[in-house]
């Protein structure tokens, strides 16, 4: 995210020379924020498009198919075209729908998914939220991700459709249930690092590259698995895709959405997915730090390492989701409450003891 810094610096420099004495400095700040927001939105949308392409290709190869290959080289532009198609489609709002909720839901869902990107450390000492320097990044992230359920509920309720309602109820129950073990599992990592700041968590892992990753601490393996399971459930992927289970609930909470609103849901889903990948990479795989030691002997920018690691995690999640069948609602709940929560408490105790006597 050197680019962001550059843009920010350039903007501030230009603005202050142009408008010295004419406008208060606060406007310069606001403009810088707007530019940063636009950049991050573009980045997330682009990322989601790439991920959708990747997902389709991975699924195709797993299933012995070819996948998109017509539009652009190797079908790379397929998802762009799909997005354009959705953009020009008619926006249908059912007559009986709650118009306001129906419209706000996809926007809320998408914005919430984007907000998480602010606190990920892209590079040493660089987060997008550096303007507000968040030292409780992890806590913020969890708070944000638990907001996503509001988008789902709004969409499901506002559509005034029974399938949507069932999907939204399922989604709400699922997201809230899986929030708890995820939080507990992440606290284990926080105990290990001694800080809620994601930057500090990465700093702790960067010293000797690959060897000092959190991944190699045996006491963090249980939290790692719990986090991965919960995160899969949080982003509604198979085997936990019951809110949008297409063979049961048609399309779940976004049954009644079309056009760009549907695209928002779709993009947000993939933005969330990549967020999980990045958080996993940050917590367990050394984030932006190179796997070959610090400073990076290959001089590859940290942001590329982060994207690469996140992409690996995402591909693994895709691989899993094209392999497994779907859980049933009650099994999903009992998995969360009867298995994952006790297990996460257990791992919390274990990690605490390890930290005490280390």
């Amino acid at each position: 995210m050197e680019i962001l810094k550059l843009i920010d610096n350039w903007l501030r420099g230009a603005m202050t020379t142009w408008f010295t004495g004419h406008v208060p400095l606060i406007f310069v700040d606001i403009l810088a924020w707007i530019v940063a927001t636009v950049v991050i939105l573009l980045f997330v949308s682009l990322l989601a498009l790439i991920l959708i392409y990747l997902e389709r290709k991975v699924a195709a190869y797993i299933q012995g198919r070819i996948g998109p290959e017509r539009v652009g080289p190797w079908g790379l532009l397929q998802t762009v075209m799909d997005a354009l198609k959705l953009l020009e489609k008619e926006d249908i709002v059912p007559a009986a729908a709650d118009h306001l909720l129906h419209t706000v839901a996809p926007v809320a869902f998408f914005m919430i998914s984007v907000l998480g990107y602010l606190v990920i450390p892209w590079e040493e000492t660089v987060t997008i939220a550096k303007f507000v320097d968040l030292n409780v990044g992890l806590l913020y992230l969890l708070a944000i991700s638990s907001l996503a359920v509001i988008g789902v509920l709004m969409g499901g309720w506002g559509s005034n459709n029974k399938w949507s309602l069932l999907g939204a109820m399922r989604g709400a129950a699922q997201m809230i249930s899986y929030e708890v073990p995820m939080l507990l599992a992440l606290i284990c990592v926080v105990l290990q690092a001694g800080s809620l700041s994601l930057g500090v968590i990465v700093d702790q892992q960067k010293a000797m590259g690959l060897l000092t990753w959190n991944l190699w601490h045996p006491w963090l393996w249980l939290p790692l698995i719990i986090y991965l399971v919960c995160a899969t459930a949080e982003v509604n992927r198979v085997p936990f895709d019951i809110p949008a289970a297409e063979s049961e609930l048609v399309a779940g909470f976004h049954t009644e959405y079309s056009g760009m609103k549907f695209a928002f849901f779709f993009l947000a889903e993939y933005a969330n997915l990549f967020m999980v990948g990045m958080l996993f990479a940050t917590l367990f795989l050394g984030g932006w730090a190179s796997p070959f030691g610090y400073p990076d002997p290959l001089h590859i920018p940290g942001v590329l390492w982060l994207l690469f690691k996140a992409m690996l995690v995402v591909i693994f999640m895709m691989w899993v989701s094209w392999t497994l069948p779907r859980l049933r609602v009650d099994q999903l709940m009992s998995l969360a409450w009867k298995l994952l929560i006790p297990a996460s408490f257990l791992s919390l105790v274990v990690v605490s003891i390890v930290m005490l006597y280390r």
Partner: protein
Amino acid sequence: MTTAPHCVTDEIFLNMGPQHPSTHGVLRLMLNLDGERVMHVEPDIGFLHSSMEKVAESLDYRQFLPYADRFDYLNGMGNELAYVRAVEGLLGIEPTLRCQYIRVIMAEMNRIASHLVYYGTIGMDTGATTPFLYCFRERERVIELLENACGQRLLYHYFRIGGLRNDLPRDFCTKLRAFLHDFPPRIKEYEALLTKNVIFRHRTEGVGYLDPAVARGYGVTGPMLRGSGVDNDLRRADPYYIYPELEFDVPVLPEGDVMARHLVRQEEMRQSVRILHQCLDKLPAGEINVKVPRRLKAEPGESYARVEGPRGEIGCYVIADGTDHPYRLHWRAPSFYNLQALPAMCGNAYVADLIAILGSVDITLGDVDR
């Protein structure tokens, strides 16, 4: 379900279908839901009704044959077999031995193809998309062999009254043997991927229990009946053609749930492979057609023939009135009877269970509505 006294809850009425991803065609299920629980389910059928039994009355015995494929479009050969046997019974024709062998080969190949569709769709219904494409990949090889033999992929019109359209194509037996060699390891693969998967097992074990007595009461046949512990396979119980000479097991499982039906079908694919091997080994040379008059006129009378299809007993009942077309034709479609047992299986089920149960009934809507 217990609720606080001041809280009034109501059941939701939900229309599942006729346009729904998992109703396997145009079936409408009227559901009463209490939350996620299905309190009441009522199948509403008839969206694909094409009055084929009536069509039969205006066509002569030969002309109706291509229509027989269209009852259960996943099992064309089995339907033709039932119709051809009924009409041959009416006319007193006995097909040659080679013809009988080839008919059995075709019916068993079609059984494999049909069970592969089932196998894929039950995976889809429980949320696993990948087995579907693997099954269709294997099915494609069966379908290509059938296409080679009779020129069409689904609606074969291969059997004729008194014989077959043509003999087996050249290299058919070699290609079929190659497929039979490749196929069992693939079944093992699906088994590891889907059947043994812990999520799939939890989704299907103990779900959709069908009592044997209830099953008999509804006239349920085929893998569903055998999944409920009733040993009834027409290839054994009322053998036709060369089946008495063939060695194969009839899988019967007593559990009566979705998993039992699933396992029965999976085992039946293996048994079909066994049957095909034996048929290819024993396939005699000789004529395939017996001489039949150019214009078929049956003496007044009636004939009922039943064969074991992939979904159960396919029965064809023909009444002749001395003309060249049937006075009445009745088709006993296994999917129709099996579907009637759906409400009996859905006691206390979740919506997700309902989908799995419906998948395990393995209906073809063309067969249900006719």
